[in-house]
């Protein structure tokens, strides 16, 4: 009997894993399980072009014509509820099971919700296509938007809403937005885009609660201020979808714990993308990367592991981009507290610059705003500089 590999999660990481299996000559059965009704689609446009109405559903489809030849068995609108590891079976919500020789965990992450926001119309999170469609409809009829959280979702949604003509206020608990990924200095620079484009940004401010009956009317801050709102978007982070694995024996932390080659503690089970906390030798801890390029590239490693191919652990240079108010922000590398950010081209005031982060005088990360060509060269240089197996 031919073997079966089950891929759980039918988004970027899951589809990339299925493609990688065929690329690496696996010719058995591949079953892809996904709980959404939609065929795989791309999430980044959901806060950008799709929300603005300039990209269609067809534009954001992840599937390519060649995928027809992969011979995948799709089980969409199907939720995995458990993994039985002795028989390596994926248990489905309808009571059926998929017996597999290998399992790829690619269930991604979901939006963290604001406690007390349940059942109030006009309050949105943004993770799925359905979320984006609902938000787009609501924004079309709204005048005032309050965004809670000035992370990636917050900044991108605020920017898109401004182009749609809304009055926008962003509320953030931290004193500086994006300080985690970019460092405080560069967080301040990027946050400056909000003011440039007429978005009000309130920093160091907590949310006490949402006001309204049936539909949201205002956001109340911890200092008592009430911000009137027709629509509220909550962008306060993402949580990995790992609850369904709670009793599976798969080791979990802030995500599915894996080694540097994506293997979990259970033989024949690998994890990739937003749900995976992958061991990083450089960081000396498990790191869960919540960005697109990781979900695209990591599955090749996971699949090689699953198929028993050896080889050194990859040493990726993490990369993400963000589009805000027409500015293209790109970041690559691994930044830590204490790294020194140095402007090597352009100027922050002009919103066109390249910044290199240095540790002990060596470049470890690079950030560009509206500098794609130079950024690409630096990103290459960082990749070339990472010693294999480190």
């Amino acid at each position, binding site marked *: 009997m031919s073997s079966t590999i089950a891929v759980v999660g039918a988004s970027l990481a899951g589809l990339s894993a299925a493609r990688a299996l065929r690329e690496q000559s696996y010719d058995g059965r591949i079953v892809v399980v996904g709980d959404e009704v939609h065929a795989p689609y791309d999430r980044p446009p959901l806060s950008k072009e799709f929300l603005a109405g300039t990209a269609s559903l067809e534009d954001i489809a992840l599937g390519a014509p060649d995928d027809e030849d992969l011979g995948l068995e799709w089980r969409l609108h199907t939720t995995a509820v458990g993994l039985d590891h002795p028989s390596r079976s994926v248990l489905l919500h309808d009571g059926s099971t998929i017996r597999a020789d290998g399992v790829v965990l690619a269930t991604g992450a979901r939006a963290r919700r604001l406690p007390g926001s349940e059942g109030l119309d006009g309050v949105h999170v943004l993770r799925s296509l359905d979320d984006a469609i609902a938000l787009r409809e609501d924004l079309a009829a709204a005048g005032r938007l309050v965004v809670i959280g000035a992370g990636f979702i917050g900044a991108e949604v605020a920017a898109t809403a401004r182009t749609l003509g809304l009055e926008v206020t962003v509320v953030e608990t931290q004193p500086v937005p994006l300080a985690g990924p970019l460092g405080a200095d560069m967080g301040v620079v990027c946050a400056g885009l909000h003011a440039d484009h007429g978005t009000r940004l309130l920093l160091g401010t907590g949310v006490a609660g949402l006001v309204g009956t049936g539909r949201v009317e205002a956001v109340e801050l911890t200092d008592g201020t009430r911000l009137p709102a027709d629509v509220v978007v909550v962008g306060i982070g993402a949580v990995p979808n790992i609850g369904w694995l709670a009793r599976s024996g798969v080791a979990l932390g802030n995500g599915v714990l894996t080694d540097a080659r994506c293997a979990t503690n259970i033989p024949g089970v690998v994890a990739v993308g937003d749900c995976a906390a992958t061991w990083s030798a450089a960081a000396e801890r498990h790191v869960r990367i919540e960005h*697109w390029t990781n979900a695209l590239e990591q599955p090749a490693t996971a699949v090689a592991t699953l198929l028993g191919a050896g080889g050194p652990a990859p040493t990726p240079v993490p990369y993400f981009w963000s589009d805000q108010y027409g500015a293209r922000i790109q970041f690559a590398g691994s930044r830590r507290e204490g790294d020194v950010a140095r402007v090597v081209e352009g100027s922050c005031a002009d919103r066109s610059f390249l910044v290199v982060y240095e540790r002990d005088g060596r470049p470890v990360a690079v950030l560009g705003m509206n500098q794609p060509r130079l950024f690409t060269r630096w990103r290459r240089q960082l990749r070339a500089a990472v010693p294999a197996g480190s």
Partner: protein
Amino acid sequence: MIPVCPTTALPPGEATRIEADEPIAVFNVDGEFYAIDDTCTHQDASLADGWLDGCSVECPLHASCFDLRTGKVSGPPAKTPVRTHRVVVQDGMVYVQPGTTGDGVA
């Protein structure tokens, strides 16, 4: 034909973007000139800003690679090829003839 620049202004390994109905990217690969549509077929990125590796260019945003000779895309996320355009070098000047394919696809 659209004049691009003198050959000396576009050394090997370099690329430039010219405005046409659709912007066009022109590359010099070891002395051979190639022209393709500048805008990536995936999303909004300029391929002239990409990474040139032999006869292919890697998109600066999501790394799909396009063959400069044929316009073909190597892999996701882009799904469709870019158009190629004919390049003519005359008296030390590089020209592009938009809408006429280069050597590869007809």
